[in-house]
């Protein structure tokens, strides 16, 4: 994307007035999307954003600037702006010897979406619309969205790191509205992988659409969710967001360092039920949160965060690893070249256990079975977190019975981790997600086997 000599001169400009660390992050992102709504292909949309973000670190201060001008003059101006922002004092010249880092990409891409005719993308939308509408007369509205992106990045820093990545993601989302005596209900389903248009050789958009439509139809007969504290069983693949919120954010080292995490200072301690082994893994082929290198040029890694209930490690970025004198973990990510990197999750999952999923339900007298969770949010300081249930059922006498309307569940992260009393042997990855932190969104994945939390508060309205 840039030649080595230009990168070296830009880093030199960034460090000209002193500085402990400098980095150039170059990004060229193309995206396209197509939307069908209300029975009509409304619009296709294309976007191109290209530029560089440059940071300079002096002591505890990071200066940052970005530019869409990738000429050498543009880069130098941004480097000088970043250096000035870092308010560097001394002076000096530093030569940076770059070493190209060849991290393996988790998987190849067979069909680059940019090579696919737009008509073929539109055709997927029409098929999805037909399939959703034929799922039942009560389906009144369907929205289908196709999206792809190709994000090429280059990262170089004053430690000599030089790394590139080419990330291709393809996504298909259907949401349906069903209308009945009880009003309107919605159903949602998505497929997304870090691959190209071959996504549609593996997944049938009609099936995606039918699943969305059936969810909406099922909810027409749903009753209000209960209110109060009870056992909650989460289905395979449906509930990775539980760990994302319950402890994932709290294990990000930036929040830990600022004393804003309930997990600060607890390395080596039993923080969860012995059934819990939690992993964050950026190398998982094709998953939504995978990549070859993170946005600081560190190769993706598999990191065990909790082993048999014992807290083994946090997630790290380059600056915090440097300070602690330890290896990086591959968790430095950013939304775009206009943003500074932060400690972020990749694909976060609970390792499968020994229990038979049917037994987990059968041994639950009364509670809630959540087949699919929606988004969530956490207060990392108190550890309190919420997450939405988009498909849930009542458990009565050890059997899954009636469907429930939507609502949030609330719990306390450290307590919920201890309250996990069953983990199934049926692991599955969940839906592609976008993790938001400090105003930046990055793609993430998650997965869980069937599991049970002894006590969670279900935020419905029924007694």
């Amino acid at each position: 994307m840039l030649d080595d000599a230009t990168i070296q001169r830009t880093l030199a400009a960034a460090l000209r007035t002193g500085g402990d660390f400098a980095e150039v992050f170059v990004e060229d992102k193309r995206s396209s999307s197509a939307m069908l709504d209300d029975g009509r292909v409304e619009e296709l949309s294309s976007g191109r954003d290209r530029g560089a973000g440059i940071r300079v670190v002096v002591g505890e201060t990071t200066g940052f600037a970005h530019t869409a001008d990738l000429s050498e003059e543009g880069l130098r101006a941004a480097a000088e702006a970043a250096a000035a922002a870092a308010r560097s004092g001394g002076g000096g010249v530093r030569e940076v010897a770059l070493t190209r880092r060849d991290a393996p990409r988790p998987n190849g891409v067979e069909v680059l979406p940019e090579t696919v005719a737009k008509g073929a993308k539109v055709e997927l939308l029409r098929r999805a619309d037909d399939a959703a509408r034929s799922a039942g007369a009560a389906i009144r509205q369907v929205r289908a969205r196709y999206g792809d992106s190709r994000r090429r990045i280059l990262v170089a820093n004053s430690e000599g790191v030089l790394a590139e990545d080419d990330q291709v993601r393809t996504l298909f989302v259907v949401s349906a509205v069903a209308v009945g005596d009880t009003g309107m209900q919605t159903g949602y389903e998505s497929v997304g992988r870090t691959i190209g248009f071959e996504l549609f050789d593996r997944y049938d958009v009609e099936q995606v659409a039918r699943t969305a439509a059936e969810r909406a139809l099922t909810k027409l007969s749903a009753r209000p969710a209960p209110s109060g504290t009870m056992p909650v069983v989460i289905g395979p693949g449906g509930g990775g967001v539980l760990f994302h919120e319950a402890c994932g954010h709290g294990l990000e080292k930036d929040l830990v360092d600022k004393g804003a995490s309930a997990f600060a200072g607890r390395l080596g301690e039993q923080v969860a039920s012995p059934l819990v082994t939690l992993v964050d893994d950026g190398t998982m082929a094709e998953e939504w949160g995978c990549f070859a290198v993170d946005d600081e040029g560190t190769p993706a890694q598999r990191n065990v965060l909790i082993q048999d209930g014992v807290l083994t490690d946090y997630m790290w970025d380059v600056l915090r690893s440097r300070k602690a004198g330890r290896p990086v973990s591959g968790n430095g990510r950013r939304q775009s070249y206009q943003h500074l990197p932060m400690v972020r999750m990749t694909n976060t999952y609970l390792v499968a256990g020994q229990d038979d999923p049917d037994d987990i339900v059968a041994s639950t007298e009364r509670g809630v079975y959540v087949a699919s969770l929606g988004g969530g949010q956490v207060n990392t300081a108190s550890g309190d977190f919420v997450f939405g249930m988009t498909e849930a059922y009542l458990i009565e006498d050890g059997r899954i019975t009636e469907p429930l309307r939507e609502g949030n569940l609330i719990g306390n992260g450290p307590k919920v981790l201890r309250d996990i009393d069953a983990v199934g042997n049926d692991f599955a990855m969940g839906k592609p997600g976008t993790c938001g932190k400090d105003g930046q969104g990055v793609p993430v994945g998650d997965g869980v086997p069937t599991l049970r939390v002894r006590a969670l508060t279900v935020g419905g309205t029924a007694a």
Partner: protein
Amino acid sequence: MRRPAGAGAAAGTRGGGSAAADAAPLEVADRVVAMAHDDEQLEAYVVRSTDTQVRVHGGEVEQLAVASSVGVGVRVVRDGRQGFASCGTVDPDAVAEAVAEARDNAAHGEPDEAAGLPEPDGVEPPALDLWHPGYAEVPLDDKVALALELERAVVGADRRITGVESCDYEDWRTEVAVCSTTGVRRSARETGGELVAWSLAGDGDDLQSGFGFSFGRSFDDLDVEAAARDAVERAVRMLGATKPPSARTTVVLDPWVTAQLLGVVAGMLAGDEVVKGRSPFAGRVGEEVASPRVTLVEDPTDPRHWGASPVDAEGRATRRVPLVTAGVLEGFVHSTWTARRMGAEPTGSAVRAGHASTPVAGCRAVSLVPGDADPARLVAGVDDGVLVHDVSGLHSGVNPVSGDLSTGAEGRRIRGGEPAEPLREFTIASTLPRLLRDVVAVGSDLTWLPAGAAGVTLVVADVTVSGA
């Protein structure tokens, strides 16, 4: 926080990116419009922004960024088909590529009778005082000093404050232009600044956080003391909080909470959702949809609103739009397309998430008409209930189509008309249509917030609190 992919972007920074950000947005937009072919309508939307972001921690500057960016969005309509493309630069080659892409995209859409760009409607944009040229002259050192002052004020205010998770200063100068082949040619600009602190309070194993902020159009509007006071109070008052028992009760919502719920209600009154049958309010104009105490207005022409703007995202003049008057639904907000589809008057309510998004109908400045009683009097009128200071998980627990509402919450118990012990780890649930009907009182404390809705204390009966 996590949401499903494709379910709407997380909040982001403003604008796109470019070094060649010198040209005025109106000139750039004119140049793009000149690239239109005779047989098509073409609209250029250009945003240019210069931002300063300062984050301090432990008495030092942790991060400092100063950046300019510019982005261009191009909409092409031909034969009733619409296409869109964007680029984060004003580089002529990139802009030409975006125009060609938008044109090609239009060929793949499906025709719609209501498609088409707006034409000038003769309504003049209001003159709003949103641009303070003096802001550009404020030295960077003063901005850094203000952030450091805020951190000191928070940390030193109370021995139970254990630290500050983040303490940020941010300001921006943003200019927007919309020009089209149909004769629209408008621009708007604003300055703004914000101070935000996230504080941490601790007592033994108990760790709680809180936030405080101050915002304004000029540097002098920023009030360190007010931001620090809120940040300290919101964290400290949660120490020792416990989980309440489940019950159906009366809740008193903090203005901050009301504003967030109003944001969801405003979304349900957007033309696109109504046209497509996704709003529970569709077809109900003239009906009583809320308590008679509820009068809801969208008014971007009021400069006190954070979202105030003289023009909308299609270049129409904004206007005051009554949405609900004394509980009766009056109408919806419209973009050009939704107004045509519904045969309604345009309301100048097109909004965009940024240069890379197409315009849709949406509110940017809603507020409830305040009532007579101040918050203390409202609480005094509640014998047993819950004061809700904050909510979480609105994106995961509120469904604007079904109307189901369930959010995480924290606050205090109300006993005998007095705020009592702090509460946390509970949810409040109802449905949005029910919540609007169950409003018992609206406070007198209209509060301007950095959000698309202003806040006010709200008393709502018969809400389910789920706890222990």
